[in-house]
């Protein structure tokens, strides 16, 4: 007995011209995307790789023919072939399935690390630039000290403290990335603070929080997006190095870096595919994020080009 009432729909008569305009606006985003892809072909390639990786991570159960820790009877260290695209490892596990599940580890670590790092970096960077003075001086000296450590050495030390595990990898990588990124965000904020709209906001009596949230943050958003994309590639690379050294995601979880260490190295002469495919996966993923980041930077902030 209910009648459906559509709210907010324009009740215009469907003339052919209007219909045409509607369908055009529906596909406009696609046109914009294609135009962007033509202007930045390398960025488009990166975007496709990143999209493929996201699909692999999200639907690993559907895509992978086997579980990541399933031992397949009678298929120990089989070379790549029709049954197992990328071969099997020393524990008779399907390499392709492990690579697919590995995307989930890389994506999880990548996105959570970058998200955490950017929140911390924005808080440090924006407040350091905005309040200046003693706060800026102290914070920047700590960042200085932090940045003087070779990244792998500091992460190894932190991981030794925290112990291996997915959460700790994310925490230690985020700690490092936030220091680096806070510098860039501080610089961008200092630039934004010179603008007259900040002065105007202050003149009409806006509080610190309002100026920071409504005026400064939106204006450094482009910088933050670029840092995020480039950071994703760097984090995936760093995670793989950590797992390779045995300080990362513990087995049997299929981390690409971990697959290259241990048995990957022990059997590399007898089953080279065990040492090849995970590396290809890491390289492709990082390549994709780097390409996409480069293109985004050119489009969003031409001033940063080449840095």
């Amino acid at each position, binding site marked *: 007995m209910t009648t459906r009432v559509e709210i907010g729909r324009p009740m215009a008569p469907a003339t052919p011209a209007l219909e045409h305009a509607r369908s055009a606006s529906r596909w406009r985003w696609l046109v914009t995307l294609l135009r962007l892809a033509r202007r930045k072909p390398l960025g488009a390639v990166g975007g496709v790789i990143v999209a493929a990786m996201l699909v692999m991570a999200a639907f690993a159960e559907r895509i992978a023919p086997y579980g990541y820790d399933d031992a397949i009877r009678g298929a120990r260290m089989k070379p790549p072939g029709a049954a197992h695209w990328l071969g099997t490892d020393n524990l008779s596990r399907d390499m392709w399935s492990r690579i697919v599940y590995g995307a989930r580890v890389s994506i999880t670590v990548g996105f959570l690390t970058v998200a955490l790092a950017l929140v911390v970096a924005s808080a440090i960077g924006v407040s350091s630039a905005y309040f200046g003075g003693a706060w800026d001086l102290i914070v920047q*000296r700590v960042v200085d000290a932090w940045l003087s450590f070779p990244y792998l050495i500091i992460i190894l030390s932190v991981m030794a403290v925290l112990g291996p595990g997915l959460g700790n990898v994310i925490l230690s990588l985020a700690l490092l990335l936030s220091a680096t990124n806070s510098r860039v965000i501080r610089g961008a904020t200092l630039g934004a603070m010179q603008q007259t709209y900040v002065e105007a906001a202050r003149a009409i009596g806006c509080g610190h929080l309002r100026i920071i949230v409504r005026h400064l943050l939106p204006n450094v958003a482009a910088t933050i997006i670029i840092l995020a994309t480039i950071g994703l590639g760097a984090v995936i690379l760093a995670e793989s190095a950590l797992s390779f050294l045995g300080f990362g995601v513990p087995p049997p979880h299929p981390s690409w870096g971990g697959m290259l260490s241990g048995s990957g190295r022990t059997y590399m002469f007898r089953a080279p595919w065990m040492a090849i495919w995970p590396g290809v996966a890491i390289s492709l993923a990082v390549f994709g994020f780097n390409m996409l980041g480069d293109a985004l930077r050119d489009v969003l902030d031409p001033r940063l080009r080449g840095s």
Partner: protein
Amino acid sequence: MLKRYVVKRLLIAIPSLLIASLIVFTLPRLIPGDAVQLMLSEKAYAKDIAELRAKLGLDRPMYVQYVDWLGHVVRGDLGESLWTRRPVLEEISQRLPITLTLAGFALTFALAIALPVGVISATRQDSLADFFARSTAILGLSVPNFWLATLLIVMPAIWWGWRPVGDFVEFSASPLGYLRQLLLPAVILGIAASAALMRLTRGMLLEVLRQDYVRTAWAKGLAEGVIVLKHGLRNAIIPVVTLLGTQLPQIIGGTVVIETVFGLPGMSRFLFDAINQRDYPVIQGVNLLVVSTVVMVNLGVDALYAVLDPRIRY
């Protein structure tokens, strides 16, 4: 003027170094399970543990240990390794040359590739060579160095039965053999830095080549080489030198992986083992040395600006 600037920068560097020393000191102590437990393993009684702790000075409050340690460090004493019982400084100085040679080679290689390719890429913007160089650079930033190293060990072995990794050759035994075994690891280590430097060189040079004085130079009829190198590169080089300074910690961090893969007994592998064995004095010593080096190099880089660009005055 320069002297005053260097002194000022040194004064700013001191608090950073102090904070770094505090991080260096506390981090290894937060590692769960201490060296004493590891050293005595299963057959330890509570009394033995307490005794050994007292002997090593690990039973005192943390801040006392820190001040004591810092006092010794200032006098050039980094303590002795809990495991080998030999002075840390001695242990490090034995292994440091390997890591330094590796890093030096890697930086040299990175610059030798980055500068010419960056210049060609910028002067022939959007040409096939430029496209190729840029894609290769991004690829160079994407490929994990430990994987590349693994491939370069595995592939020649499978195809030609040739193994690059043999026993380590000491410098005293054969200087040439010593340097040759470090060459391949150094090249792999330098690839990422090279790619980053090339991209920056290209970007900065492109910006400089659009300046008015470059157009004037063309109008005067100067040769292309003179314009690109003397008017262009000379003015584009400062950010590149800055990046070179920030690449140093990256390269030293990379030696941890490279020394492990190639089985080189350098300082970074020593540190890696020390972390696994909770050898505090060694972890502290190596970290402190590395951090101080990086801070000093960055100071040197800053001072170098004035030499590279006479317009900069301090």
